[in-house]
């Protein structure tokens, strides 16, 4: 499948499970998006593309407060967790995050909103296409915490009624940002 097709499939599948998908083309657009969303502090863990974009500086300049010290307590009160994604796969609208660093996990489990920056060039076809990268992660590091994330947290445990946002993020925002990174091993 051509990349354009994969992007469409990915976006449709992600929206079908309740994720929001938007295009951004610059750091300012990311900052605007987060600013509109955030009703409180934003947690930005360390990841390669954030550093390259100097994302935290841009957010601070825009007057957004960041969680910086005591991340465990801070993450629990943060409104938004902002991370990258290593890659994604289209069939199910899934983003894949190498989450061995605890900060990535805190930012993607505790805040009510999770915003993900994804280079659409890194959208693969499906879960089987993801396996070789999964294997590489395992080969490169002796310990791993790898996460497939597909839409926001959900439950149907009461009367089988689908309800969004139980323990994890209530909203998942995927910002498609071309030119971020073409390396699926990098976030």
């Amino acid at each position, binding site marked *: 499948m051509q990349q354009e097709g994969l992007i469409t499939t990915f976006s449709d*599948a992600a929206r079908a*499970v309740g994720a929001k998908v938007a295009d951004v083309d610059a750091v300012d657009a990311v900052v605007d998006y987060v600013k509109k969303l955030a009703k409180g502090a934003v947690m930005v863990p360390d990841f390669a593309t954030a550093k390259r974009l100097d994302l935290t500086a841009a957010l601070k300049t825009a007057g957004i407060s960041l969680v910086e010290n005591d991340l*465990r307590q801070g993450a*629990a009160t943060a409104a938004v967790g902002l991370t990258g994604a290593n890659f994604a796969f289209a*069939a*199910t609208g*899934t983003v894949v995050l190498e989450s*061995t*660093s*605890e900060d990535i*996990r*805190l930012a*993607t*489990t*505790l805040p009510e909103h999770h915003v993900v920056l994804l280079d659409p060039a890194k959208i693969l076809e*499906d*879960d*089987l296409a*993801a*396996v070789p990268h*999964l*294997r590489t992660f*395992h080969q490169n590091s*002796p*310990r*791993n*915490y*790898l*996460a*497939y*994330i*597909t*839409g*926001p*947290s*959900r*439950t*149907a*445990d*009461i*009367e*089988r*009624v689908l*309800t969004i*946002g*139980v*323990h*994890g*993020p209530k909203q998942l925002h995927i910002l498609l940002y071309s030119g971020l990174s073409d390396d699926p091993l990098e976030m």
Partner: protein
Amino acid sequence: MSKVRAKEYQGRIDHALATPKLQDALHKFGDAFLLAREKAFSQYDFEALRQEIADCKDEVAAHRQQYLEQFITNAEAAGATVYLAKTAADANQYIAELARTKGVKLVTKSKSMASEETHLNQALESAGVEALETDLGEWIIQLAGQRPSHMVMPAIHMFKEEVAELFSKVTGAEEPAEIAHLVQVAREQLRQGYLDADMGITGANVAVAETGGIALVTNEGNARLVSTLPKIHVALLGVEKIVPTLEDAATIIRTLPKNATGQLLTSYVTWIRGAVPCGDGDKELHLVLLDNGRSALAESPQCRDALRCIKCGACANVCPVYQTVGGHVFGHVYIGAIGIILTAFFHGLDKAAEIVRACIGCRACVTVCPSNIDLEHIILSLRETIGHEEGIGLGKSIVFRKVMRNRKLFHSLIRAASLLQKPVTGGNRTIRHLPLFFSSLTEWRTLPAVAEKSLRDQWTKIPQKVEKPRYKVALFGGCANDFLYPELGIDLIKVMNKLDVEVSYPLDQNCCGVPALYSGDKETAVALAEQNIAAMLKDDPDFVLTTCPTCTMALQRDFVEFLKDNPVWADKAKHLAEITVDAAGFIVNQLGAAEVFKGLSAAEKVTYHDSCHLKRGAGVWKEPRELLTTSGRELVEMDHADRCCGFGGSYSLTSHPDISKQILGDKIKDIEKSGASCVAMDCPGCMLQLRGGLEKQEVDVRAMHTIQLLAESLE
């Protein structure tokens, strides 16, 4: 058999049957599940996927030690501590001791059926450690002091009003019974628990030998919190979760959510290996690998396929018995069809003794199992084991061993019954009421009277007009066709003669043995198999025709399996299986003769009921429909056409008549709703059940065998 145990079990059935709200919910869930599941698999080849999973799990089972060692070596290399727990008590003791030595006060848990299996929460409590369930469903049942009634949706039996009451006790405020609100209450109440806990306990859906890691397939996000925030992470998992490679794990994970909840993928799939960072240091990861009967299961040739199970719960979702009584009756800790088998091996045969008989044998579970487990077949073999251990009851024992195996005695007793029944039949073909302690048998359906003259007793007098027979076939009538509905056999001759087929009726044929087998008396079933093979092959027929799909399964499947190691009978059984075919399938597939009936019938509105063993045993369901429509009838499909009618032989007469009655009620509603004036089927057992129910409820729909309708067309 324990009388106390049986009485408690009946009490649970009565309670469940008195809760129509639960039945309604489980029925609606079953319907919605099938639709969602079909949609989820629309781009995938389910048959291929389930074969892959079965092959993978079989490979691991065949080389258990090798993959176990590989997994442990890799897990330990990544910094995990691995403990092999032989029993549930071992696992509990290890975890409780770990908690004690580490000074753990609070444990947060995400959903783990293995921990339900070992009753870990009680063990932790006894050790003075508080265990907090964080999966919404698990938390609800923990607050209610209950056990899960479903493997994927533990609180499926509860309603929002009950949940609101439980939550109100926790918060001390009046919580409204609104689902979104209740979910928010759980979010807020459990949040602090993750931060305060010193230990997090999860299960695992897959363990990968190649990496030494585990994968968790979840929706709520609690497992990610449980495995991230506390300093210690304990994963409790059955040894059967081990698969060789990441590809194998991916295959299971792509299949599991689709088959469990109809989701393409769950919100989260989390791959964890080794001691990942936690706060200022590294997490302490303990993997507790639970055997607890799994090795014994792997050693059982009849039952070992059950170890392939990936715990999706689909076998319960589609089960008419589960839908009628729920998982607190039809299960122990593990529920539904797979629950019967796992209970026997993990919790003991006595815990499975009642539920092993509660399976009606409809095979609905077999068609949706993502690991290609023939659940019904395994349950039958367990029933036999329990029959050995506990006996099958004196009455049945005499009937099967002393009477049925002696064909002449058996048949003369039935003939005697046809005379003795006169006072209750009044000479009619159906029995509407039975006196005294038999009265409950005819409370909800009439029963057919034993025919005055059986099929075998009038066979030679039935004229056959075939000048140059295309085939010579032998009819295997089965007891119902022979003694209850001989007219069906006469109609079969009429139809076959029209198609230039000559029919014989070998008089030495006996009961197919299924009633004995289903009651746990395999010995009698094998004896009957030998009698029947000899009888049916005596004149070397081209085909053996059946009008009852349960008999068909016996001839096609069971006889072969019983006798596969018997040099005298193995080949003969195989030959009989090869030439046995049900009548409707024979007309369409072997004769290609549906067109013969073209337009011969009036345009009656007919709906078709798929008999369990015809559709899911013999794979025949298109053929009778083709015959009915070709003959000029208007076929209107009822809802749930292939859902069991509730007959199940002795299931409806002696073992579970009250469940049978409920399932019949569902079927009659579907038949009525279709607007048809006739319901067709290809099984005398279903005919007994449906005709009896329709008559009793005075529904003006006739219940007919397809062969009877074809004979009508020829009139």
